[in-house]
């Protein structure tokens, strides 16, 4: 047999051996991964990770977030009939949450970490709102120039925890960040008032307006919102006075003028009548509040 042929056969044999063993190994790993998607390689205490990463902490955080991103997501596979089906994955959510925390330990300012965490963790499954809030609070502390982490904390507090008053305060806090969009203050004031914190909302709005130029975009909207809140506050105080005097709540706001508590109802800058619902909450933007749907809040972008 010629030498060249012998060498060729030997090469094919060795390559076949290599391909078979490597392919078997890959298949085994794929089976294990399907059983439970997790990455144990990163699952170390934060200080140990910092020590291992050395001066490349930021890069390690980047890599970790890419690893999380690669694990999450929807997997679509082709079925036998030529169609597609979505593979149901079982994630180790506790492990993934720890990965987010570890990534933040390495680079607490990285936006990709908290945005990805917000995109997955608080929703069902796994519904890990408390863990997400902690990740966002760390990001907010380490990104003093960025209004987004605080804004998202506010959204989660309203949407997942159903605490509008607290959410409003958080939105107003986010609105104080330099270059924060005006809608934060408007939403914040709305939610704070809904949560029974009208005076606090007015105080924050006033302090924010005092630092703004009337030419700035959003100034007029904030000004209108402040006036609307001031109207609500007048009505709230009048309601308390009414209850104190007559021993019961008024059934509608005109009772306040009819029975002499107020000379006139305050003006609403939105040219709508104020509305009092069954629970005694006053609205400036829902004239049909006794039958209207609940207010929605803008989701984080």
């Amino acid at each position, binding site marked *: 047999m010629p030498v060249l042929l012998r060498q060729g056969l030997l090469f094919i044999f060795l390559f076949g051996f290599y391909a078979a063993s490597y392919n078997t190994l890959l298949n085994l790993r794929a089976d294990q991964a399907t059983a439970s998607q997790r990455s144990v390689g990163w699952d170390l205490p934060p200080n140990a990770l910092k020590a291992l990463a050395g001066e490349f902490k930021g890069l390690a955080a980047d890599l970790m977030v890419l690893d999380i991103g690669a694990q999450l997501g929807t997997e679509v596979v082709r079925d036998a009939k030529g169609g597609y089906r979505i593979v149901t994955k079982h994630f180790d959510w506790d492990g993934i949450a720890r990965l987010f925390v570890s990534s933040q330990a390495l680079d607490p300012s990285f936006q990709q970490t908290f945005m990805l965490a917000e995109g997955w963790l608080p929703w069902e499954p796994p519904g890990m709102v408390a863990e997400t809030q902690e990740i966002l609070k760390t990001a907010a502390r380490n990104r003093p120039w960025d209004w987004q982490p605080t804004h998202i904390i506010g959204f989660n507090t309203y949407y997942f925890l159903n605490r509008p008053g607290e959410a409003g305060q958080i939105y107003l806090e986010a609105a104080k960040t330099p*270059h924060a969009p005006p809608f934060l203050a408007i939403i914040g004031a709305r939610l704070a008032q809904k949560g029974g914190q009208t005076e606090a909302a007015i105080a924050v709005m006033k302090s924010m307006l005092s630092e703004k130029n009337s030419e700035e975009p959003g100034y007029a909207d904030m000004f209108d919102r402040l006036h609307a809140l001031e109207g609500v506050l007048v009505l709230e105080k009048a309601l308390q006075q009414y209850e104190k005097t007559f021993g019961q709540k008024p059934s509608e706001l005109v009772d306040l003028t009819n029975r002499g508590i107020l000379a006139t109802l305050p003006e609403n800058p939105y040219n709508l009548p104020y509305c009092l619902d069954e629970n005694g909450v006053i609205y400036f933007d829902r004239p049909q509040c006794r039958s209207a749907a609940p207010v929605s809040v803008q989701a984080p972008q």
Partner: protein
Amino acid sequence: MQQTLSNLWHLALSTFIEGIRHKALWAIVCLAIVLTMANIFVAELFTWDLGKVSVEFGLSSVALTGLLLVFFLGMKILADDLERNRIYLLLSRPVAGWHYITGKFLGLALILALSTIILGLAAVLSMQYVLWQYPSFVPPNFSWLTYAMALACQWLALLVMLAVSFLCFSFASQPFVALLLAVSTYLVGQNMELLRRVVLENTHAGILTGQIKMVMALSWVFPNLSLFDKKLVAAYGFAFSGQEFLLLGLYCLSYSALLLFLSTLLFNRRELA
């Protein structure tokens, strides 16, 4: 005095030229350029903070390449002098031990400066592309001055590591042992600040509990390299004062001078033996 300066200059220049001619240098520079260009593609993998990823990747490329130069090129040049008996040729002339150590150090420091500048500029090009493509992801306080200061800090850290390599080389019997010692010192130096803070701020620090004095003593012996790590500062545009920069320069200078002095003592003893 003139003779001393002349010796130092010629040793530094010959080391610099030797380093430039070395194939290892160009292999490392090629690797670094590839890494820097990869910056563009790596940044594309992310959705947010692309500017940060790009700046950090660029500075990390500089750091990695510098370390490779210190550990392999620097050690190789020193080891070659001994293995090829060139050192006897030098020391048979009116060249003192400290001239040799300092001249070699300066020559290698120049090589590190050159590679840092080349890589730093290459990184700037790739970063500029990413920042231009995605202007909304440029950190609000990002400044090229802070980037240049972070790059300079990277060079200062490499100088400290170079001085450590000289010390290890001066007393280790084999170049490989010197390399191992230098790498170990680098790893300890990178974590010295972390260790110091764990002991100082954590009352439940495991086996380190109650070892504050020992850890503090070690933190004065080993280089505190993490202080020079300003990648995140440059990437996010955090405040980096000129005072801190100056103090880092002084720390690098004093620590390196001390190590070179010790290296000379050990080197002279080694030659005598």
